[in-house]
């Protein structure tokens, strides 16, 4: 019978050597960079075409996302149904995502079908037509979806906190309204497409078990396109709200309130950023965090409470987010500030410090497990103009950070006066 009162010995995860496997880097003859990892047990492939075509670049609300979304709804020779049916016939998924800086077109498929599928991906990024009818349906459906989302307190809160933190004109704080969606025209999409897809700055990330002629396939289908043009980043300035505290009454039948408490934070180049990632984990970034421990596991005010640093390129924000029972919203907000105060006044003890270090190292070990995970680490570095040194520096900070540094950091950033506070019921 084992002695259950004694924990088995562990190897501290901070003693693990975590190596980010390199990815293969090539350039197509037009200069388009391709980063890929050819590995894995399953016969699957993922190719992600990342364009500098996010909503930073739009001059009219909603145009970037509409362009990205409708890029597969009709080309010169195929209608929307034919295109979708084509990809689905091969069991492939063609997804589109639009972010602030970038917009991507991503293909997931069985590797054996790449040869058939890639020519049609090329067609989408060279011959999209954006038929009027497709745009109309997109607009109608977006407006309907928006009307439902606007009834949800969490959706409303997420929009508003970003607006307070960046300003309503900033791409990180801007939101689409019904009339914005109504105003999008086919001409808007065609001109955005021409500017950012036909003459694009595109980077390609891929992972999977590829055929031997994978590089030739990419070259044949994409090597002659204008995918390596200069697209200058557009810089925006933060225009934060003047009022710090906000209350919105959104749903008279609401039984919970959405709470957001957030402050501006610099971008990841800032020397405090990596340390803040650590402090954030301890504060509200994992299941065992201070916020979860107190507000969920001790008080039972909420199903979950989290804090995070927003994943933006130019600048960031540090946000606490939760949905709590209507009658305990104020108590929840008070406890968030109490937890900040504790971090400002009392040094984190050695045991908790080691626990968070080990937890984060274990997490990082899992983050680089398998080709799909590894390429997504590389992608996140490359899109932020960083290299593997940043990855290793992050690990070094986790290993070396001290409770004194955390105390200093808390006193610098976890200061209630700097936070915007929002409650939506």
């Amino acid at each position, binding site marked *: 019978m084992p002695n259950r009162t004694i924990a088995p010995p562990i190897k501290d995860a901070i003693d693990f050597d975590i190596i980010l496997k390199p990815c293969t880097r090539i350039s197509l003859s037009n200069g388009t960079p391709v980063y890929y990892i050819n590995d894995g047990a399953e016969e699957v492939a993922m190719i992600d075409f990342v364009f500098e075509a996010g909503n930073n670049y739009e001059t009219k609300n909603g145009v970037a996302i509409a362009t990205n979304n409708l890029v597969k709804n009709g080309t010169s020779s195929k209608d929307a149904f034919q295109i979708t049916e084509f990809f689905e016939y091969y069991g492939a998924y063609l997804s589109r995502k639009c972010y602030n800086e970038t917009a991507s077109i991503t293909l997931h498929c069985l590797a054996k079908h790449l040869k058939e599928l890639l020519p049609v991906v090329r067609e989408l990024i060279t011959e999209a037509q954006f038929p009027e009818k497709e745009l109309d349906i997109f607009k109608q459906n977006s407006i309907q979806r928006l009307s439902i989302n606007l009834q949800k307190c969490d959706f409303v809160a997420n929009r508003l906190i970003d607006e307070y933190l960046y300003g309503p004109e900033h791409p990180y704080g801007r939101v689409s309204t019904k009339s914005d969606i109504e105003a999008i025209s086919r001409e808007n999409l065609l001109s955005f497409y021409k500017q950012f897809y036909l003459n694009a700055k595109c980077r390609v990330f891929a992972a999977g078990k590829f055929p031997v002629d994978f590089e030739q396939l990419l070259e044949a289908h994409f090597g002659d396109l204008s995918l390596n043009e200069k697209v200058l980043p557009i810089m925006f300035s933060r225009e934060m709200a003047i009022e710090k505290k906000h209350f919105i009454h959104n749903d008279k039948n609401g039984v919970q309130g959405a709470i957001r408490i957030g402050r501006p934070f610099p971008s990841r180049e800032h020397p405090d950023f990596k340390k803040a990632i650590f402090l954030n984990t301890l504060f509200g970034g994992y299941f065992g965090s201070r916020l979860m421990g107190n507000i969920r596991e001790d008080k039972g005010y909420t199903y979950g409470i989290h804090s995070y640093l927003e994943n933006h390129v130019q600048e960031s924000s540090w946000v606490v987010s939760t949905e709590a029972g209507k009658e305990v919203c104020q108590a929840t907000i008070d406890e968030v500030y109490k937890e900040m105060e504790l971090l400002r006044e009392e040094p984190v003890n050695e045991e908790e410090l*080691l*626990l968070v270090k080990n937890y984060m190292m*274990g997490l990082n070990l899992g983050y680089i497990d398998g080709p799909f995970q590894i390429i997504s680490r590389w992608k996140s570095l490359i899109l932020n103009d960083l290299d593997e040194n940043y990855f290793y520096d992050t690990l070094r900070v986790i290993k070396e950070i001290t409770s004194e540094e955390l105390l200093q950091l808390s006193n610098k950033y976890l200061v209630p006066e700097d936070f915007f506070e929002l409650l939506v019921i």
Partner: protein
Amino acid sequence: MIKFEKFVLDNGLRVIVHEDRSTPMAVVDVMYDVGARDEDEEHTGFAHLFEHLMFGGSLHIESYDEPLQMAGGENNAYTTNDLTNYYLQLPAENIETAFWLESDRMCSLAFNENSLEVQRKVVMEEFKEQYLNKPYGDAWHMLRDLSYKVHPYKWMTIGKDLSHIENANLQEVKNFFFKHYTPSNAILTVAGNVSVEQIKQLAEKWFADIPAGEKYVRNIKQEPVQKEGRMMEVAEEVPLDALYKCWHIAGRLDRRYYLAEIITEILGGGASSRLFQSLVKEKQMFSNIECSHMGSIDPGLLYVDGKLMKGVTLETAENAIIVELEKMKSEMISKVELEKVKNKTESMLAFEDISLMNRANSLANYELLGDANLMNSELEIYQSITREEIMEECKRIFVDTNCSTLYYRSTVKE
């Protein structure tokens, strides 16, 4: 092909090991054969509430999460109507920590009054967040209750009513634990950078001395065949009218289950599916429409639900759906359509198997169904399905007497 080995301890605990030397991690998955279908109708939501209590400390270990995090691990759990699953991932070198933690809570919980008190509140907030504080959040409570008159699938995992969770007491918690959380009612799956030999030793060391307990024999009243179409209407302050329709289908181990799976794909899988193409794109009656099924072990439900475009009536929209379903009954689907669905299934299964966690979870799921090896033979079943079978199955499923319909009307005026 996912390779694994299986052995059984004397106390009835089934252990499955899947070696993958390419990863530095290990996954440990403990699946208990208990879900909301094992609850009493007056005490619903209990299996799920209990899942929360499994983290409130066990016989010799005050906190479950902290030692695991200290070992570089992370965990979570979920409860369905059929089963409860606890899973964790950690660096393979620290795997013994997982055995220590999981075996201690299989021995016995601490049964802490305070933990029950807090988790009751947490689950009530979860109930509000997921089902009450969201437009249409209560639709599935109503639909289950409409579709099932006898079988415990008539309530959601979260429970029928907030009061059931509010009233849960410690004695019930204890009874539930000793009835369902026994080794013979559990499956331990270990995957990752481990060896079968090592797992055999660890399983013997940590789990072998847990008493077998009394074997729980499930005795659930099965749902009688529905004999009349059922209809329900509600009017709420939601922005759009919504329509829900569902039909009874076969249980998980029946060949007809796979037919239903293919039928839902043809009708609602992806943007080239029939309902999307016809009702969202061509007729523009819905702004979105879905067709899926519950994926349950006992006979479940296939459903269609969608939000209506402003100006379209529920009656018109329902008729348009029925027209599409009638086509499935009267005309054979095309060869290309069936091939498409089979190709999608093949690719979906391959993508699922990329993640170590998914592989472990699938093995446990199939073992719970009776044989972990089903994981490797399921694709063959899909491949063998014919167009004739699909048409026959549509004729069985899509009849009025087998159907329950919910009109969810909007009271919001523009």
